[in-house]
């Protein structure tokens, strides 16, 4: 990785330098003030850098050399499913017939786009055991928000206005409670039992006629499948609540078990996790939301329908929660997921989950002698360790993560889930080879030894990266959020 400091683009600017990309004006060169009143016009020039094309290319190339992606190496970031992003999917999403299509073109000129949306809905419904999907949500949290709106709209449609609470396990992703609050629900936390699943008695105690639903990730954020799922679904349904499936961990169960068959009423999937679309350094993602039949009328509008050889948008949906995003969602991301599903097929998808689970268990068994494993049972697609043994040598999980950077790895997710002290969560995904896993395992064992014998190596890490540990407290205490010319 590039260690040399890269100036900010503004510092590279040279007055008068430019890249001429646009043609000269070929229509009347009317004075601008004749078209727009002077009082609306900006005085002086806008403050943007002045650069040549090569300056821009070198700058962003240098920045890319300070970044680490899945193609750079192993990225076992738990709960994020950093699998390989197939190149063919990037290529087909850039076809003119997808990339250069305007969202308001007439339906007959976008039949290919509509067919793709319609079929992706069918595929995702089949994979999850739901009846219908909306591809409008732009990200996982956006899918959660849409799903919770659907739950709220459903209860209110039934005249059930008392249901103002959503139950969320203490192991849940932060987006779960935040999404519930964003939709106007009150959040009630349910604790986990000693096997990492939901404490059934605690759940029963929480149930009453104010519960709108339960949000659950299964396998949960400990990477463990909740064996009591049947009972949980029954308890929630009997009390009149609905079950929400957070699909962040769906990579463990494709072709093996379906949320719809587990009793879930609403599901969101992260196409940028399970279905291999790249994360783009934090987006764009895509978080389709799927529902069981009784909730279909509440889906965001429009939905794509098919009739007599023609695909079309159905906007006439009086019970719909409404629109949650412009147009139809992150379409070009959906294109990549559609291509991924077709390239694998039913058996290929099942093998994804099998290999993902095998890889996680392999790491778990190989490392559990060296790092504390708080829940020693078969895991699914990810495994959560605790750095508490290393803590005794004065080494924190943060130190372990930073040391991994020196070895050329992206570290696991750290300090999550919140219910495990010094947690680190390893999700290898199915696209990693045995050789990669073995190398990672050996590195982790070496780090465990260093923690005992040379803890300062971990305290000082990383040294082998473009920058060393950064002062986050300073950044928050006196925020500098943009470049100011000095």
């Amino acid at each position: 990785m590039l260690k040399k400091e890269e100036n900010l683009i503004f510092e590279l600017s040279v007055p008068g330098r430019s890249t001429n990309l646009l043609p000269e004006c070929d229509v009347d060169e009317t004075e601008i003030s004749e078209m727009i009143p002077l009082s609306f016009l900006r005085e002086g020039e806008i403050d943007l850098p002045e650069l040549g094309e090569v300056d821009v290319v070198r700058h962003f190339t240098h920045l890319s050399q300070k970044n680490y992606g899945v193609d750079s190496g192993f990225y076992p970031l738990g709960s994020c499913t950093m699998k390989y992003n197939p190149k063919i999917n990037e290529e087909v999403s850039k076809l003119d017939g997808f990339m250069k299509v305007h969202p308001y073109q007439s339906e007959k000129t976008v039949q290919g786009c509509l067919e793709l949306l319609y079929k992706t809905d069918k595929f995702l419904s089949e994979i999850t055991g739901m009846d219908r999907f909306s591809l409008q949500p732009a990200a996982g949290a956006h899918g959660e928000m849409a799903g919770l709106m659907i739950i709220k709209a459903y209860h209110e449609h039934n005249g059930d206005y008392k249901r103002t609470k959503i139950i969320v396990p203490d192991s849940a992703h932060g987006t779960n409670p935040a999404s519930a609050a964003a939709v106007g629900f009150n959040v009630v936390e349910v604790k986990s039992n000693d096997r990492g699943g939901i404490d059934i008695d605690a759940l029963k105690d929480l149930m009453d006629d104010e519960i709108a639903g339960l949000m659950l990730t299964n396998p949960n954020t400990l990477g463990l499948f909740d064996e009591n799922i049947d009972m949980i679904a029954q308890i929630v349904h009997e009390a009149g609540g609905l079950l929400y499936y957070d699909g962040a961990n769906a990579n463990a169960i494709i072709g093996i078990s379906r949320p719809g068959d587990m009793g879930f009423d609403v599901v969101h999937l992260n196409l940028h996790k399970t279905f291999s679309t790249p994360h783009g350094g934090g987006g764009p993602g895509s978080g389709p939301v799927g529902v069981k039949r009784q909730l279909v009328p509440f889906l965001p509008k429009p939905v794509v329908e098919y009739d007599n050889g023609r695909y079309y948008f159905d906007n006439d949906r009086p019970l719909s929660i409404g629109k949650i995003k412009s147009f139809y969602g992150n379409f070009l991301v959906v294109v990549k997921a559609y291509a991924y599903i077709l390239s694998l097929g039913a058996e290929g998808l099942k093998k994804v989950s099998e290999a993902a689970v095998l890889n996680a268990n392999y790491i778990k068994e190989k490392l559990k002698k060296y790092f504390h494993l708080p829940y020693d049972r078969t895991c699914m697609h990810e495994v959560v360790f605790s750095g508490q043994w290393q803590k005794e040598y004065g080494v924190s999980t943060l130190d372990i993560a930073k040391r991994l950077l020196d070895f050329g790895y992206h570290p696991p997710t750290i300090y999550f889930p919140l219910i495990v002290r010094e947690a680190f969560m390893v999700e290898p995904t199915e696209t990693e080879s045995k050789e990669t896993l073995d190398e990672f395992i050996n590195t982790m064992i070496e780090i465990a030894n260093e923690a005992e014998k040379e803890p300062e190596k971990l305290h000082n890490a990383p040294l082998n990266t473009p920058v060393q540990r950064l002062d986050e407290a300073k950044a928050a205490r006196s925020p500098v959020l943009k470049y100011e010319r000095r």
Partner: protein
Amino acid sequence: MSYIPTTDEQQQKMLADIGAGSIDELFADIPESVKLKNKLNIPGAMSEMELAAHMRELAGKNINLDEFTCFLGAGAYDHYIPSVVTNLLSRQEFYTAYTPYQPEISQGTLQAIFEYQTMICSLTGMDVSNASLYDGATALAEAASMACEATRRNEVIAIRSIHPESREVVSTYTKFKGMTLKECGIKNGVADLNSLKEMINGNTAAVLVQSPNFFGAIENIKEIAEIAHENKSLLVVSCDPISLALLKAPGDIGADIVVGEGQVLGNPVGFGGPYLGFMAAKKEFTRRMPGRIVGETVDRSGKRGYVLTLQTREQHIRREKATSNICSNQALNALAATIYLSVMGKKGLKKAAELSLRKAHYAYKKLMETGLFSPAFDSPFFKEFLLIYHGDVEKLNEHLLERKIIGGLSTDKYYPEFRGGYLVAVTEKRTKEDIDRLVSEVISAC
């Protein structure tokens, strides 16, 4: 196709190593009752070659803007995308990375976001920008919630000239949050200020306005700001960032929060997404902003570096008390915008804006000269304008389509009050010849 590198043999070895008899054994925690008994009904698997052919066939069922001349805008615009934008975005270190949780190996993403924030502040005239939101419509909805929290009031007023889809999104968000959304009417294609003065009250958290608005017309931000501020309400302005190369920065004429659709900054129309929403605000609202924010700091050796900051606003720390539930943003689209603004620079962006403005005015003049349209109103406009067509808009567009022109948008569905409304957008990509051809085909259609 398969992207699994481990061979069957290796998998058997791994199973033996961990003392498992079979892969099925690893799934023993899943009760039989919820296990899938049959195979998923999914077609495939396709080889890469078959997949490429299938996708080309599907894409071929759509017409695209390279083959057809586009005069359609209404929130998604066919601006020129410099070659360097597409090229640099395809660097794997950018597009295959996750959210920059490990700053030491994410300085590329982080510094680019810091540069993006600076450029957005400079365009909008605001103090602070976040790292982007899902799109312009959701950014407007987030701004509405932010204003309610900041003012401890519960009502927002949206001007009817805001993009109808944005108003729908704001309506969905506010309905579920228990906020009240009111609509202020329009006069001569822009906000009816008298009506706004009558509506605004002690419970109004913010006035939401878009400029240039859905019709392309430029709103009088300054006067709307005065009305809002007199009532101690905030002003939220949604704008087209390219227009800001010519127009006054909203922050300089009274806006408290500025949002907008950033698609025009180097992102393809892509059948509606992914785009990016930008959001910038005055300093006092910094800690109320949703989404990621990047800040400058130093590393242990004193070297300048960048980190995600002010994270106590966010869901992974604050859970149900977070300012919003946003986790992913649109980082790669924001990177496209940053590269776009860098390579266009101050001169290039101004040129794109001026060309769009002049060509739109040329098209307006020529279309009016046909005698087949009447103006919907006479407010000044930027790159888009609304005309009233005297004939059948659908037939007109059908005629144009047969001649490889994608005509304007019929607005009857959204604005029945302008019967025959025809919204035409013209960017710098349309040549005089394109426009003259549109005009002659419009004449031949009647």
